[in-house]
């Protein structure tokens, strides 16, 4: 007699009576109250096998202890498998975020983390190593030894080489042990914190060993880069799909987990007063800046192959642009929001080859002397070729071809060794159509809405106000909202938000295959021209705001970069 699984029972949920015959099995998660038949059986029978012919009243069992007004979102039990558990991302971001979630009582008591990497280690050695990492990299948060002790009981480790196919059946066996001990419900989250070149072998290995399927849900998280061009991104998706459905693939973009980026949606779609202004009639142009003051910091060899366009604009900044410019979604359900974001990305005009050099700027930093110290140029960094044509700075002008945004330039720039670390979006509105007040240029300053993503997440609106006193003199004033101080509480890190989302199964802030492909299509067109152009690098000094050509690109349309 076949087992009845949850999805088979669901259509019957409206019917109070269900006849089960001997040997009929029920999935865990469904409660059956016996109303006739096996009188000795317990009320509250869940799962298992019916021992004789019985008539059951059944219902899908829901946790009755919920209070959405006061409680945080519900988090299901799961085991998280981290490939690359000895790597930097695990130490700096993933484990501190998971510990913090445990500290905030957000994880199920039976949560489990199984780390995998080549380094031989016992569970206890792994726990010790993670303890040191959590203590070192836990930001804005206290450490509690008791909480850690309980949390660490759920940390496990297995050494293994991904190139060895035997690791996957071994992983399956270990997961079964953990599931029995920790009640993880068969739910497994695979986190690929490895080199991108290992994504496909891991997915294939999980698929071949059938670890990618199971009694509970399976999800897989991958970090950028999602390919290095459109073709490789498509190949990656195809290979992932041999073991996982697209709905099970979570492509993480930590920018989308930042509070301000999420707040863009709240700001735009939670308030009635902004949306009428959010279009070509009122918005003059948009600037999105992601600046870093540091160089490649030992990642020269990797960065040499990537560059700012691929490393930042194809993913982070394109996603931010999509969030800023997307149409209102019909609901806040993941599919609905992601559909709109995807639609926007597909609306970005793909440049023709002859348009690329007019609408983009490629830059590379040279050496400089900053704050009394000599700073090397990119070509002097370790692992970088002396004639590298890599863009450490990229600026592009995008146009979104839809009715809302036709003709509005979206300027995106990202670079290394710029004056400071800052990521922000500046939306410049059209100036008042007529200057009726006498005064200098400040009296016609356009309204500016600044959405700061880092380091100080918040929103500022700049507008003009009359100076007190006789006469009509105007001055710009700023209305500030700051996340850190306005709500008086710690904002969760992007990884806390995104890890929780994937455990819950909320993909709203994750990138979907069609979004990745749409942004690659835009970026590929630029990259192809850049690859066939020899730039006169270096073309900006470290500690400056990038090449002069970038200013010229805006000046052609009468605009200037805002200095963050």
């Amino acid at each position, binding site marked *: 007699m076949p087992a009845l699984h949850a999805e088979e029972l669901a259509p019957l949920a409206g019917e109070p009576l269900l006849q089960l015959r001997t040997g009929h099995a029920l999935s865990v998660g469904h409660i059956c109250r016996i109303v006739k038949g096996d009188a000795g059986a317990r*009320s*509250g029978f869940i799962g298992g096998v019916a021992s004789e012919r019985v008539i059951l009243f059944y219902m899908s*069992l829901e946790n*009755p202890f*919920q209070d959405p007004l006061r409680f945080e979102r519900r988090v299901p039990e799961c085991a998280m498998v981290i490939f690359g558990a000895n790597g930097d991302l695990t130490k700096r971001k993933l484990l501190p975020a998971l510990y913090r979630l445990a500290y905030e009582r957000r994880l199920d008591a039976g949560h489990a983390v199984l780390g995998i990497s080549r380094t031989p280690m016992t569970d206890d050695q792994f726990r010790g190593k993670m303890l040191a990492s959590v203590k070192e990299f836990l930001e804005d948060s206290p450490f509690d030894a008791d909480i850690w002790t309980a949390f660490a009981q759920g940390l496990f480790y297995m050494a293994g080489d991904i190139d060895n196919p035997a690791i996957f059946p071994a992983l399956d066996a270990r997961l079964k042990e953990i599931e029995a001990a920790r009640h993880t419900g068969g739910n497994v989250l695979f986190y690929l914190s490895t080199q991108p070149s290992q994504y496909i072998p891991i997915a294939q290995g999980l698929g071949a060993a059938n670890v990618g399927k199971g009694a509970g849900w399976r999800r897989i998280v991958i970090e950028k880069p999602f390919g290095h061009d459109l073709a490789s991104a498509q190949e990656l998706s195809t290979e992932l799909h041999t073991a996982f459905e697209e709905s099970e693939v979570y492509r993480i973009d930590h920018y989308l987990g930042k509070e301000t980026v999420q707040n863009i949606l709240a700001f735009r779609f939670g308030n009635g007063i902004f949306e009428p202004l959010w279009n070509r009639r009122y918005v003059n142009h948009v600037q999105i800046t992601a600046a870093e003051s540091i160089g490649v910091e030992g990642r020269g060899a990797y960065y040499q192959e990537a560059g700012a366009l691929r490393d930042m604009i194809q993913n982070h900044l394109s996603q931010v642009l999509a969030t800023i410019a997307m149409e209102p979604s019909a609901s806040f359900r993941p599919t609905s929001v992601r559909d709109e974001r995807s639609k926007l990305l597909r609306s970005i005009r793909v440049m023709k080859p002859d348009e690329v050099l007019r609408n983009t700027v490629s830059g590379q930093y040279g050496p400089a002397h900053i704050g009394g110290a000599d700073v090397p140029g990119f070509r002097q960094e370790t692992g970088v070729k002396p004639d590298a044509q890599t863009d450490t700075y990229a600026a592009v002008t995008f146009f979104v071809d839809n009715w809302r945004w036709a003709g509005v330039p979206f300027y995106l720039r990202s670079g290394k060794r710029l004056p400071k670390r800052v990521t922000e979006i500046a939306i410049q509105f059209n100036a008042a159509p007529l200057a009726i007040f006498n005064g200098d240029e400040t009296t016609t300053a356009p309204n500016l809405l600044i959405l700061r993503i880092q380091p100080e997440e918040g929103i500022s609106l700049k507008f003009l106000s009359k100076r007190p006193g006789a006469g009509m003199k105007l001055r710009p004033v700023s209305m500030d909202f700051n996340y850190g101080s306005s709500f008086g509480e710690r904002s969760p890190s992007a990884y806390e938000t995104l890890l929780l989302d994937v455990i819950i199964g909320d993909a709203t802030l994750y990138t979907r295959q069609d979004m990745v492909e749409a942004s690659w299509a835009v970026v590929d067109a630029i990259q192809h021209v850049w690859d066939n152009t020899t730039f006169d690098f270096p073309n900006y000094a470290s500690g400056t705001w990038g090449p002069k050509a970038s200013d010229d690109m805006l000046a052609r349309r009468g605009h200037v970069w805002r200095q963050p």
Partner: protein
Amino acid sequence: MSAAGGTIAPDRILHDMADLWVSLGKQGEGDAGVLRACSMTLVVAAEESDDEQAIGETLAALMPEHPSRAIVIRFRAEDQRSLAARVFAQCWMPFGHRQQICCEQIEITASDASLPDLAPVVLPLTVPDLPVILWCRSPRLFQLSAFSQLTAIAQKVVLDSAAFGDPAAALGDMVGAAAAGRGLADLSWTRLTRWRELIAQIFENRAQLANLPLVSDILIAHRAAATPTTAYYLAAWLTDGLAKIGAHPRVQFRSDGGEPAWRLSRVELRASDRPDAIASISLAAGTCAEIRAGGLVSMALLPALNDYALMREELAIPGRDPAFEHALAVAAKLALS
């Protein structure tokens, strides 16, 4: 500003507030200026003997997250009618900028005999279009019949039943007020949020959830000699939730002694035929709670929350709280049974 002759005029207070903003603006250096922030009117009713400094500190801590026009009314048990008021501002400098953010605060002192005169004073002082929350820190005031005029102004009245002498009577009074249409909150219920959330989290796990219909007994241990309202609330919430899935357990309360009296020390959900509890939460030494379920042990912080933390949670819910209202009704029946 203190009104002469023991009376106060709302217009005068509003005028004083306008003057206050002008003077704050003048103090601002250069272009920095002062930003006024307000998301509600928070009326605090307290006894004159209540710790003035503690109230001030709590309000100051609440302001950045819940900027409000605070009206603090301090009552003294006096037969003669007298009222006095002064206005001042609570300001803070956000994110290291030069610009200050300020909230208004009005302090009124009143005799009990003046209580009937207060509502017409407070009503025009509330900020238009924003919710009015009344935090009543004194059971004595809540039980004065004239106090209902003040509660009628507020969308929500926040009490702390732990301060009432008789828990059953407190719950009865609150049920009466709720029946009269008042939106109520009880900080004793707020203290339970973390306990309740931990219990809910245990049963998010499907394996633990499967055991829930088997619960036959609930034990709630507390520190007070008499069963506190927190224990009744928790019992009400648990039995109500279990009833939804067809379980009707017995509830046992137990006093373990200790301080603070209103604090719970242990919650257990048991099945009659199992030696171990299906789930238990015990407050260990300090602020850590030990959670046991399905053979797993985990820890969580359960610190005793101060007025600021409790009010912060309540002010985030300016409207009605159906879960609380339901628990209140069931808890009152439990306490009286």
